[in-house]
């Protein structure tokens, strides 16, 4: 018997060394017969459910050297991710591969130089989790950085420090190196987790480099917003021999700090995650303005370097009846401020607050009934930017038409309510985040904004508009969709 056993053991295929694959996918059909393009509302502030488009991600790992239990040999893994937001027949991109990108590539190595430390070279993104109902990750570092990081992990502590270059992620084709450095720390015991982290990016001036940060001197903010910088300059300098001012070299920096508090495992409270994040966004690069046949790049580093975003979010997961009734509740507050801009409504000068409640009741171990509701308010600080009515273009501040005004609509506040309900099929069993998940849902939205969803309506009130205008504040969608983590 012993000999037989030994022979059989020798014949056992060892773990197919190396390759491991995972990923994420969501696809949906959401006809609404109201002119929408498949989403209930504008964005995730009203809950990600029914407000997101198709998405697919494939994640690959290959163990070049597998970690061994007995021994202290180095191990190393190569990781790649391909992802994108298009699927054939489900969105305008029709699954074309130009909608996808190799978003992650890194090599991870352990047991090199230091115990309990793993080294990562390549893309460095790390996160302490998400607000699942919003699909937002405030506690993330190195989202845009390629470089090197070290991660120390013990039973209760995790430390990450890294540095690299965020230039291509932030500037794209207009590349200029942006030094990025930061780190995070997390301490935890069974029922409590505390984390903090941050990242700082610095873009230095490089003499003569056309994509380095610059400022165009003597430029007025209002002219820049209106696209009238050259016009104003030529009004004061009408002779074409007068040279448009040369850009002046500058520097740019940006960064963020975050905190994370997690606790749970008490009674019905499965877990509660609280995130706090403060961010100063990176100044913009130049944009080209053309007037009267003259084109000039306008450098606006000092016009875009005081934009900040404060985000506070909380998500609570409750198991009221195990394997039968789950509840997820989340709230989000965001405050965007732009100290450079006091005149025009903008996404950089607004605040918003939202709350989402999802209840999922298991009918059988694999079939559930889902109900979700959200309420959200968005407020523009620098004037009105929401059109409540089809003829809003005629009304601005004080109800008066202002063709030179910077406002866009007839109100500064958007209030949105959404309700969603339907059947969910979870082959792997019950749970509010059990995946794969196949859903048959009905969604309903009311907003004070006219046509508050992505659409292709004509909004002009021109007498030659052959399609006419539409006013509607209720939006309905019926959704057949699937989502999977694998």
């Amino acid at each position, binding site marked *: 018997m012993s000999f037989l056993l030994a022979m059989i053991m020798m014949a056992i295929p060892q773990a197919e060394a190396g390759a491991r694959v*995972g990923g*994420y996918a969501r696809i949906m059909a959401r006809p609404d017969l109201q002119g929408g393009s498949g989403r209930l509302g504008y964005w995730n502030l009203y809950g990600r459910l029914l407000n997101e488009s198709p998405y697919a991600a494939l994640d690959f790992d290959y163990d070049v050297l597998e970690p061994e239990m007995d021994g202290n040999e180095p191990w190393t893994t190569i990781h790649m991710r391909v992802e994108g937001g298009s699927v054939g027949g489900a969105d305008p991109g029709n699954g074309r591969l130009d909608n996808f990108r190799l978003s992650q590539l890194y090599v991870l190595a352990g047991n090199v130089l230091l115990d309990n430390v793993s080294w990562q070279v390549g893309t460095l993104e790390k996160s302490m989790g998400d607000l699942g109902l919003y699909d937002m990750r405030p506690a993330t570092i190195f989202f845009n950085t390629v470089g090197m990081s070290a991660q120390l*992990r013990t039973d209760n502590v995790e430390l990450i420090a890294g540095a690299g270059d965020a230039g291509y992620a932030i500037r794209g084709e207009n590349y200029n190196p942006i030094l990025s450095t930061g780190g995070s720390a997390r301490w935890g015991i069974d029922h409590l987790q505390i984390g903090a982290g941050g990242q700082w990016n610095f873009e230095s001036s490089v003499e003569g480099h056309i994509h380095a940060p610059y400022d165009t001197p003597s430029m007025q903010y209002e002219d820049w917003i209106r696209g009238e910088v050259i016009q104003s300059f030529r009004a004061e300098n009408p002779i074409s021999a007068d040279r448009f001012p040369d850009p002046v070299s500058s520097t740019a920096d940006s960064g963020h700090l975050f905190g994370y508090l997690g606790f749970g495992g008490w009674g019905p409270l499965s877990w509660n995650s609280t995130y706090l994040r403060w961010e100063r966004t990176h100044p913009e690069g130049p944009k080209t303005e053309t007037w009267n046949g003259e084109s000039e790049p306008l450098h606006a580093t000092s016009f875009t370097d005081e934009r900040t975003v404060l985000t506070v979010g909380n998500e609570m997961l409750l198991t009221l009846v195990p394997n039968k009734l789950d509840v997820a509740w989340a709230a989000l507050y965001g405050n965007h401020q732009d100290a450079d801009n006091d005149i025009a409504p903008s996404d950089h000068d607004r605040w918003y607050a939202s709350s989402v409640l999802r209840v999922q009741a298991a009918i059988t171990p694999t079939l559930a009934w889902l109900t979700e509701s959200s309420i959200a308010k968005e407020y523009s600080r620098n004037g009105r930017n929401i059109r409540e009515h089809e003829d809003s273009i005629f009304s601005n501040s004080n109800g008066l038409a202002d063709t030179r005004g910077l406002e866009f609509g007839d109100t500064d506040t958007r209030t949105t309510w959404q309700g969603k309900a339907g059947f969910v099929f979870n082959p792997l069993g019950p749970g509010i985040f059990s995946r794969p998940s196949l859903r048959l849902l009905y969604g309903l939205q009311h907003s004070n904004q006219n046509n508050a969803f992505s659409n292709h309506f004509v909004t002009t009130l021109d007498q030659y508009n052959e399609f006419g205008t539409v006013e509607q504040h209720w939006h309905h969608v019926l959704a057949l969709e699937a989502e999977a983590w694998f």
Partner: protein
Amino acid sequence: MVLVFAIMGCMSTKTLPPAQATTAVATVITLESPEDRERLAPPHAVVESLRTGFSKNGLSLQPIGTKPPFSQLGTRHHRTEWLLDQTDGSLAVMIETEARQRSQLGGRFQWEVTATITVVSKESGVLVEQLRLPTTLPHIHQSEQDALVAIGARLAEKTAVLIQRHQRSGT
């Protein structure tokens, strides 16, 4: 609503297997974290998942305690021999698992559990199968034990199927 009832009508309703004599299965389960080089205690919830999965298939889980840690008993061949000695050659199963965090994806944490399941009895010999069971956990603090709990029901089902195959091979 008609559509809903149509869908529900099409759903398969699993019929329970006919009542049969319960077969005792001496069981050992181990959990390792190769990246941290740690041998971990399998959580109680996994043992319960296995117990439930076994009982649905007419099997009764009989845990076997080991000292020193089972996975330190030489090679898998030695451990299988040891298991046969403990059970006097009757049916036993050894589930050796390794859990590794694979990736972070969209704010979730992807893990993979590799399970080597060895079913052995003096009468029917040895049957070994290796499985890879991926799972996605929602929180950063979750560990190898949480990954094992998350795949517990699938592991139980697959182990029970393997035991039944092993039993059929001996008849």
